[in-house]
């Protein structure tokens, strides 16, 4: 059970290491400033409240889903229920065909990344353009997002210049501000020509039938204003009961994600334009996606993973993410969030190494705005994986090792004997491990010494020294 070799490539890339570590460090610093007791005295209370609101909503989800649907319908919109990504793609391609739509603009949505929506639409001959700057860039590069909030975190301005020249045909430009203006110009045309705008949803307000979008660039506003059709795609876990509940969540999301008390634009959208409104979409569809969420819902211990508001804070604080970056996680969600939910959606044994790729430092749980117990969930995954492997007859050597270890630990005199034997074999310096014969020089020993020196086993153990100390006095 080892991690993919890709990780070693990332670790051996100093500029990339620096980019990821610095960018996440900055996001941590920005966050820290706006959640101090002086700036936000009720921060901890808000976390508790957010956890309670999500728990309540999910424990009564059928009620709130129906309420959401009734309100969306009342306001002239239509709810489309989809069990999986294929149904979402199917609906959208049929809609595009029916409405003669050829161009789609998209604002950032991790949910649509989950289901590879862009690929499916392109296959159906529908031009699909990402409009969030980071997503736009990685779409041109045909890459997965590197971070759930900052998709292009890993790229330099030079890489951006390269892809803009190659794919947009513009003159090479390495000044970042000018790169942004190139994107503005190119995308503005698309916004104003698009037939359909697809967004995600940060929150779905059941009591209003509303989609809430928290963004900074203005692309989500344009995506949901300019085209005549707006489709919002959201997992069923995004619900909150009332608009007033946003007073809790909006105070947590921006601060946790980027250190902003509020993102530049918070849109509260409920349906197509009303009578008298001059602009806005004429048709509105809310696509509700299951894709494994109901299964997670059914497990009371794992249910809390559905509370996630996708702030990315856990990624920023994770020392492992900060070393290996977003592309070394097997699924679209990376960091501690990805490590916890990938096994739940893709199968525990799909990437069995993933829950073990953590030192369990707990920094993620400390910052999670909705108080998901991430390290606890990782430990539970480990337990399940070990038991599954045992049932499959795998991991025998490790299991044997731990069995032997546990047996020694239950027999103090034998444990002491083993310790004494060990200290006889090990000499005074730290290199003893490498002198062990064959098998003992492999595995853990070799892994340890590949990175750091080994301590010497003490000539006499504490218990021996204690006895001597006691007999002296």
């Amino acid at each position, binding site marked *: 059970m080892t991690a993919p070799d890709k990780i070693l490539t990332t670790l051996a890339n100093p500029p990339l290491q620096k980019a990821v570590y610095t960018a996440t460090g900055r996001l941590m610093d920005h966050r820290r400033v706006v959640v101090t007791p002086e700036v936000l005295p009720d921060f901890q209370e808000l976390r508790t409240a957010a956890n309670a609101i999500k728990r309540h909503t999910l424990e009564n989800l059928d009620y709130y889903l129906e309420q959401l649907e009734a309100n969306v319908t009342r306001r002239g919109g239509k709810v489309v229920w989809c069990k999986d990504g294929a149904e979402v793609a199917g609906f959208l391609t049929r809609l595009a065909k029916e409405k003669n739509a050829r161009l789609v603009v998209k604002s950032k949505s991790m949910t649509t990344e989950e289901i590879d929506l862009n690929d499916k639409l392109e296959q159906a001959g529908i031009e699909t353009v990402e409009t969030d700057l980071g997503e736009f860039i990685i779409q041109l590069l045909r890459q997965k997002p590197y971070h759930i909030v900052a998709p292009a975190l890993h790229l330099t301005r030079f890489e951006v210049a390269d892809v803009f020249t190659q794919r947009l045909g513009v003159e090479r430009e390495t000044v970042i501000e000018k790169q942004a203006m190139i994107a503005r110009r190119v995308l503005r045309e698309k916004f104003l020509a698009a037939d359909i705008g697809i967004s995600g949803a940060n929150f779905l307000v059941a009591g209003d039938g509303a989609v809430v979008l928290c963004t900074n660039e203005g692309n989500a506003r344009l995506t949901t204003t300019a085209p005549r059709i707006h489709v919002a795609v959201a997992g069923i876990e995004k619900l909150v009961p009332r608009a007033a509940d946003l007073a809790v969540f909006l105070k947590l999301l921006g601060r946790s994600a980027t250190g902003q008390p509020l993102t530049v634009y918070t849109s509260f959208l409920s349906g197509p334009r009303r009578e008298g409104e001059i602009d806005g979409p004429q048709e509105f569809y809310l696509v509700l996606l299951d894709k494994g969420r109901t299964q997670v819902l059914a497990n009371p211990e794992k249910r809390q993973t559905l509370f996630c508001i996708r702030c990315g804070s856990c990624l920023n604080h994770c020392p492992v993410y900060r070393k290996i970056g977003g592309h070394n996680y097997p699924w679209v969600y990376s960091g501690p969030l990805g490590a916890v939910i990938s096994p739940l959606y893709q199968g525990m044994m799909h990437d069995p190494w993933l829950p073990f790729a953590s030192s*369990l430092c707990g920094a993620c749980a400390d910052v999670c705005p909705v108080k998901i117990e991430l390290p606890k969930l990782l*430990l539970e995954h480990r337990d399940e994986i070990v038991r599954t492997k045992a049932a499959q007859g795998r991991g025998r050597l490790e299991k044997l090792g731990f069995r032997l270890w546990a047996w020694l630990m239950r027999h103090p005199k034998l444990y002491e004997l083993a310790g004494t034997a060990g200290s006889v074999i090990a000499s005074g310096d730290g290199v003893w491990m490498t002198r062990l014969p064959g098998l003992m020089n492999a595995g853990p020993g070799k892994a340890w010494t590949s990175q750091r020196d080994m301590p*010497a086993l003490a000539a006499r153990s504490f218990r021996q020294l*204690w006895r001597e*100390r006691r007999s002296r006095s």
Partner: protein
Amino acid sequence: MVKRVTLFVTCLVDQLFPRIGLSMADVLEGLGYELDFPEAQTCCGQPAFNGGHWEEARQVARHFLDVFRDSECVVCPSGSCASMVTHHFEELFAGDPGRLAEVRALKPRVWEFSQFLLDVAGVEDVGARLDRVVTFHDSCHGLRELRIKDGPRRLLAKVRGLELREMDIPEECCGFGGTFSVKFPEVSGGMARTKIDSILRTGASVVVGLDSSCLMQIEGALRRGGSEVRAMHLAEVLGSR
């Protein structure tokens, strides 16, 4: 009033770093406590628990409960071992009401060393002297599960001749994480190097922590990097004269 303290030195201290246990004993005896060391003690079970081998962890944890059941006050020189007992035993025995009750009864009597000094013994100055510039590493379990942050710094402030310089990332994980260190050695090593870079930037000659597992990881990386900076456990610092 606690008069008698039971030592749980941890398997790592017992076998690899006994001087940490001896220093802890020195400090406690110096404060007037009678000490006992149940020889039947071995380990809290954490390596197996973290490794997903919960059945084996339970076996070892049961042994622990049997050994320390009647202790009035257990003191331990490790944040992670103390929190294993006080925070994770309940998870292990969630399905075993008898053992669960034992855990709950024992829990308030188990103390990490620095917390014992400050909250039970009520002392900050134990008469220590160490003429060194040191920096302090906040071990993860102690920091995040036991909420240890200021305590060790208050204790260090009373050590004569000692100058404490904070590193810029005291709370960042050193990369040990138990079996993580050998399952993902390159990532673990990378995390260690980030940590020691921060340590070296302080100019300190000693890095202090309250978990020997972290210190083993950090000192291993320091030696491999050719540095002379030493790792010392808080108990060793407080036991210095």
